[in-house]
Structure formats: structure tokens, C-alpha cells
């Protein structure tokens, strides 16, 4: 095999390794989020996430956390959201585990029922 063909083959291997690493990483991430969702029930109804770029062009993960109406009450909201944030930063640690800047938004179940946004469904 000539040098060019060998380099092309090496590049292909490295791209494929990157893809596999990406897939493995994304599966691991999805499993960690599903596990977190279970631990946070019944306050958290579900957690949706999207991996993309933030407004600065940095790789980022956007979490959409749907809370039960009970957890969204003024006397509980602060405590619940702080717990969710702490667990995301400690257990998932998206910056150090995947190089993703995390962003979290919270919404109540009844708000989502009114707004009907597919990204939160």
C-alpha cells in the first residue's frame, strides 16, 4: 500500500474510532441521565437533553427538566432545582466527562401542558 493510501486508511480508522467513541459516550450519557431521572422521582417527571453548540460555538448539552406541579410550588421549587443541578454537576459532570458545557432549564408539568413544546415532551 502506498503512503497516501496508508494515510487515508489511518484517517478512516481515526474517524471511525471518533464515531464509536462519540456513540459510546452518548449512550453512556443517556444512561446516566435516565438513572438521574429515576433517582429524582417523583419531583422530576422527565429529563430531555440535546447535544449541540451554545451561542459561543462551544459543544454544549441542554437539559430540559420537567418538574411535577408539586415540586414547582414556590415553597419547594428552590430546593428541588438546586438538588437537580447539584446531581447533574456532580454525577454527570458534563464538562469533565464529555467536554460539554451544561445548561439546565426547568418547567412545570402544567406549564408544559399549556405550552405543548415538542422538545419538552
Amino acid at each position, binding site marked *: 500500500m502506498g503512503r497516501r493510501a496508508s494515510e487515508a486508511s489511518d484517517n478512516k480508522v481515526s474517524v471511525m474510532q471518533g464515531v464509536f467513541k462519540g456513540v459510546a459516550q452518548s449512550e453512556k450519557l443517556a444512561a446516566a441521565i435516565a438513572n438521574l431521572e429515576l433517582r429524582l422521582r417523583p419531583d422530576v417527571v422527565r429529563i430531555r437533553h440535546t447535544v449541540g453548540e*451554545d*451561542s*459561543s460555538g*462551544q459543544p*454544549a448539552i441542554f437539559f430540559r427538566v420537567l*418538574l411535577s406541579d408539586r415540586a*414547582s410550588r414556590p415553597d419547594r*421549587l*428552590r430546593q428541588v*432545582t*438546586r438538588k437537580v*443541578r447539584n446531581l447533574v*454537576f456532580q454525577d454527570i459532570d458534563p*464538562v*469533565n466527562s464529555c467536554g460539554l*458545557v451544561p*445548561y*439546565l*432549564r*426547568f*418547567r*412545570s408539568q402544567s*406549564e*408544559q401542558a399549556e*405550552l405543548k*413544546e415538542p422538545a419538552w415532551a
Partner: protein
Amino acid sequence: MAFADDLLEQAKHLARREPKRPRQASLRRAVSTAYYALFHLLISEASSNWKIAAQRARFARIFEHSRMNAASVRAAGSSFSGGDPAKAGHLRNVARAFSQLYEDRRVADYDTAAQWSRVEVLTEIDLVEQAFVSWHAIRNQAIANDYLLSLFVRER
């Protein structure tokens, strides 16, 4: 009351302005105002370290949102190994709040398709409130002053 505190109070007022059906305009302005509360808190703290009082207002103009955000993203992900874990935790609270609000302020100000709910906005404001508390806990510490410096000095 300082300007940053006034902005935080205004953000809370906007978030609760319409008790039944909040207007998107109120919710968007609340997110934006909460961001600016933290932005101005940090700028005023950095400026207060400038020795010549008459130059502080001009000094405050050198801050750029994007550079402050880049520094905050770095601080938010840092372990600050070897330092006091409690102080590091407070600084990460501030940096994470800045990074989150920087992103969400842009959505609130420019993305007209985005819908905001009151809970979303109240949690953003709570993040800033928490950042204010954390900042006051470490404001005289070296870790806080290093962070302030990183907000306007270009990373080499």
C-alpha cells in the same frame, strides 16, 4: 441599595408581574435583567479594586460579555485542586450562574420563537440570587480576585 441588587429585585418583580397569565415580554425581560444583575455585580466588584476612584466608571467599560463568559465557563469546570473546597464551590456557583444566564439572556432577547414559562424564569433568578450569596461569601478571597481578573484579561 447597589445597582446590581436593584436589577435583581426588578427581575423578580417582572417574573411575578402578571399573577395569572405571565406575558412573554415580562418573562423575557426578567431573564435579561437577572443576567445584567450578575454582570453588574461582577463589574462593580472588579472596578472597586481599581485604586483611582475617579477612573472606575471608565474601567468598568472594558468588560466584554463574551470574554466574561469564556472565563466563567473555564471556572465552572475547574476543580481548583489544592484550594479550599468550600470557596471553590462558591466560585463555581457564580461562574455557572454567569454561563447559564449569558446563554439564556441571548435566547430571551433575540429568539422570538422561544417560549418561556414562569417556573423557568424563577429558577434562572434563583440561580442569580444563589450566585450573589456565594459571591459575598468569597469576595475578599484570592480565588475571587483571580476570577475577577480573568473576566477582562485575555487568556494566553
